[in-house]
């Protein structure tokens, strides 16, 4: 392996300067559970590794006016140990808890899960359904975008040279909201989603769904936001007919590949079945006053 430079800046400005000034290939290191594997397998050979775990904006979890913010380098275990966050965002945590083993979650960050840009990333549909935005910094300053605009295809993101995801913001949901994420895998642990579904919905006082967001993972080149599936829930009491329409809309939106985890036909079928199940969990949480 060739010589790699390692830097661990302590401020965002220093991190951006390092990323922007780098001449060769650069890799951002958060938990390293993807990056180190990619180095080990000779998939990448970075000239510079920028470790972002010593920057406070990237490692904080805090309540802000209007929502929750957590740093892109916060590990899964840190989120799992944060009781209030877990109670507030059980749907997001459904996804986070499925990222690898306990050992992997001890290091792996949500920022890494998003920026690794796997279509099967477990935290991504959950974040998107919850309406999460990402704060990005770069040589031209700061910008805020919805999480669904980061990944553009397998391993590809919309981040420009020198840009870095700093944190995620989860806006407070109205009362009567609930969210959930589930994935289908042949094994119960340590597997990669064949299909993943994240759904957040809000019920009015009359029990009628007033808002919904549905995100599907592992059924396209990136996580899909399916407006037709959300529309199938809005205006209903999330009854059997609505769930049938949701399942049909979810299946119709899929454009998966065949691979060793499942065929196209199988993924399309499972997406509908899983969307129905996830909607019921989100509904139960919405009725229970959880988000």
């Amino acid at each position, binding site marked *: 392996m060739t010589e790699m430079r390692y830097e661990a800046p302590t401020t965002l400005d220093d991190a951006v300067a390092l990323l922007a000034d780098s001449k060769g290939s650069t890799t951002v290191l958060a938990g390293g559970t993807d990056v180190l594997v990619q180095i080990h397998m000779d998939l990448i050979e970075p000239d510079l590794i920028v470790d972002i775990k010593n920057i406070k904006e990237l490692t904080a979890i805090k309540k802000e006016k209007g929502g929750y913010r957590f740093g892109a380098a916060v590990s899964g275990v840190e989120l799992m140990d944060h009781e209030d966050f877990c109670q507030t965002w059980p749907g997001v945590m459904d996804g986070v808890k499925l990222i690898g083993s*306990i*050992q992997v979650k001890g290091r792996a960050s949500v920022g890494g899960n998003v920026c690794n840009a796997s279509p099967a990333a477990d935290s991504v549909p959950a974040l998107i359904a919850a309406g999460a935005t990402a704060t990005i910094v770069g040589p031209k300053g700061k910008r805020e975008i919805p999480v669904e605009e980061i990944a553009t295809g397998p391993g590809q993101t919309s981040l420009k040279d020198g840009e870095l995801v700093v944190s995620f913001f989860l806006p407070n949901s109205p009362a009567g909201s609930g969210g959930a994420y589930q994935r289908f895998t042949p094994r119960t642990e340590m597997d990669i989603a064949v299909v993943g579904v994240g759904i957040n919905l809000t019920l009015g006082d009359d029990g009628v769904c007033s808002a919904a967001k549905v995100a599907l993972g592992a059924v396209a080149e990136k996580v899909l936001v399916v407006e037709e599936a959300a529309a199938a829930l809005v205006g209903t009491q999330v009854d059997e007919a609505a769930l049938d329409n949701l399942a049909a809309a979810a299946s119709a939106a899929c454009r998966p590949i065949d691979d060793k985890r499942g065929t196209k036909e199988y993924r399309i079928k499972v997406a509908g079945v899983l969307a129905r199940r996830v909607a019921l969990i989100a509904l139960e949480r919405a009725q229970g006053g959880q988000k």
Partner: protein
Amino acid sequence: MKKHHISATINGDEVDFLCETSETLLDVLRDDLNLTGAKEGCGTGDCGACSVTLDGVLVCSCLVLGVEAEGKEIETIEGMADGDELHPLQRKFVEHIALQCGICTPGLLISARSLLEKNPDPTEEEVRFGLAGNLCRCTGYQNIIKAVMDAAQEMRGA
């Protein structure tokens, strides 16, 4: 090639070492510090044979760079027994014959200790989920689960 000078605490001892950026913590432990208890099974974080704790958090040492250990406290299998006295988990692994080839054992013991620190009274299902990141290709896990459940009971003073 310029090496990084890293200071860390390993099993309570202050340790200094030199490493290149590309060296993992597992490489450093095994090749530079002669702490060969942690094993390299896969090198990709799937098998857990290299499990150690880093500032109390269970990690795969193959997925941590040596340079990231600066200022950190690391616990490895070599620090688990108290002199000649085995940790209850180690004793129960022997009693229940919870190993065959032994490659996965150091990682399983570190993971099991970490699990019991967080959850001293786990159900069998919680033990199975908690140890899902540690693969054993010999035993079929049955005796490992028994050993951990038995050790947990003893450690609770039951």
